């Protein structure tokens, strides 16, 4: 097999996503403070500027009923799973848990940590607008970030200068640019790296110290550029939907009976996490951060342009379709995530107009390998049009 070490780097990333706690604790060993965050709307730059490493709280994929008496049945498995980890004290090593008022399901997971898992005195809930595309929203964000900054200064007992923030912004932007470079490979018909691998590397970015991460990712990209590339992508599938940190599902897409490739994932655990930049060298750093976070692919629960009611996210999706040329779209929707399913309703006619077939997978804690496998294979079969 011809790989010039790219496989080994990817393996390293994968092992970090599989051993998140060990990795995080190793950072602590190096004297770093750790802040867990439950929603990607938390401005990590501010934490990073204070020398705190933000690590995303991800699910453990353990099927359990314990949280049913803490969070309502009809909450997404992701929030149940994250709450479970709090109750199991898997994250007790965190110095701080932060979330922004966003998805109510995740907010409830946060509440469980605070109310029942002993995080009362090391938690911060940042109020974040639920409609982001308005002038007042950016002003509000700025104020809310300022409060956050002051809290972090008190918490970390160090002042956060504008230079600190600028440095953090640059580090994070670098990560974002590198990730975009990486994802660009998937536009090719014979990408040197597979979609699931890209998903793994992207997920790792939400768990790692960005400086270390950037170095590793740079190496990876270099090596990939000299890679000849793998087999033609076959049927190109794009995934759009909610948070999904279960890499088994993405692997599934490429282990079908047919040649199929995962070429894009629009979700807050993938593209939505990094597909933007924070303006650099602005005088007002917090305003810059606000501007950056507003320019993201919006989360369906925040996506209403005042005046028109337009969903900005759809523009991004159509752009990605143009750029990455999928043969089919897979809606990977967290069960019980209403905003996602509302978007799907409106998205289907758009895709039908573009003549792109779609199918739906309903996400839960467990991955029904046969069922998903069957639905995906059937999807590929309808796309390729097998018939006797």
């Amino acid at each position, binding site marked *: 097999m011809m790989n010039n070490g790219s496989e080994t780097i990817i393996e390293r990333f994968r092992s970090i996503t599989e051993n998140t706690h060990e990795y995080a604790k190793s950072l602590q060993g190096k004297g770093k403070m750790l802040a867990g965050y439950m929603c990607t709307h938390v401005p990590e730059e501010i934490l990073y500027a204070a020398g705190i490493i933000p690590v995303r709280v991800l699910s453990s994929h353990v099927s359990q009923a314990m949280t049913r008496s803490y969070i309502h049945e009809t909450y997404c498995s992701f929030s149940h799973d994250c709450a479970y980890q709090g109750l199991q004290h898997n994250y007790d090593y965190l110095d701080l848990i932060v979330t922004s008022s966003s998805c109510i399901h995740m907010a409830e997971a946060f509440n469980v940590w605070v109310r029942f898992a002993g995080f009362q005195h090391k938690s911060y809930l940042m109020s974040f607008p639920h409609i982001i595309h308005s002038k007042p929203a950016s002003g509000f964000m700025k104020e809310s970030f300022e409060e956050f900054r002051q809290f972090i200064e008190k918490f970390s007992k160090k002042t956060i200068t504008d230079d600190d923030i600028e440095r953090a912004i640059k580090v994070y932007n670098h990560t974002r640019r590198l990730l975009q470079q990486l994802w660009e490979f998937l536009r090719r018909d014979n990408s040197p790296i597979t979609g699931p691998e890209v998903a793994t590397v992207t997920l790792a970015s939400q768990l790692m110290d960005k400086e270390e991460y950037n170095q590793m990712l740079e190496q990876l990209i270099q090596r990939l550029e000299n890679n000849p590339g793998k087999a033609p992508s076959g049927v190109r599938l794009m995934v759009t939907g909610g948070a999904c940190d279960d890499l088994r599902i993405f692997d599934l897409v490429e282990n079908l*009976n*047919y*040649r199929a490739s995962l070429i894009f994932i629009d979700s807050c655990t993938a593209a939505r996490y990094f597909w933007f930049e924070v303006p650099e060298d602005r005088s007002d750093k917090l305003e810059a951060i606000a501007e950056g976070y507003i320019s993201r692919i919006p989360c369906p629960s925040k996506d209403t342009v005042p005046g028109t009611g337009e969903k900005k996210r759809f523009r991004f999706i159509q752009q990605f379709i143009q750029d990455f040329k999928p043969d089919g779209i897979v809606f990977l929707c967290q*069960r019980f995530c209403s905003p996602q399913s509302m978007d799907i309703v409106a998205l289907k006619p758009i895709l039908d107009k573009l003549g792109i*077939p779609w*199918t*739906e997978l*309903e996400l*839960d804690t467990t991955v029904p390998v*046969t*069922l998903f*496998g*069957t*639905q995906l*294979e*059937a999807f*590929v*079969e*309808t796309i*390729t*049009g*097998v*018939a*006797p």
Partner: protein
Amino acid sequence: MSEHTLINEHPDFAKAQVIVAGVDVGAVSSKSVILLDGQPCAVSQVKTRMPEESASRAINEALAKTNFKLENIHYIVGTGCGRTQVPFAHRTITEIPCDAAGAVHIWGPSVRTVLDIGGQSCRVIHCTGKGRATAFLWNDKCAAGIGRSMEVFANLVKKEVTEMGNIALQSDKFPKLSDFCSVYAQSEFFDLIRSKASKEQAIAAYHYAMAKRIATLAARSGVKQDFVIIGGLARNPGITDWVEKILEVRRLAPKPEWDPALITALGAALFADTFYRRQQSDVSKKPEESQCA
């Protein structure tokens, strides 16, 4: 079941050019159909236990009705949720294309929508006149297992599934149960007993609820005519009648000689037939043709 009526009594497999079989390992029952030069020659249907063992039981039961053996079959296609567990299959195809192929083969090129109500899953398939599936809708998690839940329900009321289906037709005035989830419907059914509803009403109510859930799925994906219903539950008049009423669409009349539960297996057999012939012509042309769809 009328599964023997279609069988050519003296299959002369020695003369047959192409002997193929489709094996459909479903969640509740496993079926197989053997074709001799495209003609059905034996079928079988057995209860699914563990998939691999059930697949063997299914094909053996069908072979028992013939005068030939497994090794005489040229090509076997496995389908159904247990398709990966069919050790003797040359290839697998998912239920969706098989449903379409089978339905069109039996009801003809006018079929555009196939509703397959199985033991575990419920799916709607759109297809072309050539039997090619163009789109499908799989049941959401809350609508899973309707077929099996009917069996459970039959046990609760101590009735045969089909008998129950007929009872369900005897009442059209009944309280509505939750048509959202069969667990809910079940609990509410007990409440009907508690409120002393008649047996006919209660059974009709449960059937209506399940039919409504199925019909919602079908309507969601859009029903184009001609419309057919296949799968185990297609045998239950209590379900099919209500589905038709709710959708306000008549289905093509069921074929007495074909058990609707066998259509998917038939589709698989048709695929087997095609693949084998293609393979033969490929071999005569260039060898080593990949089996990729």
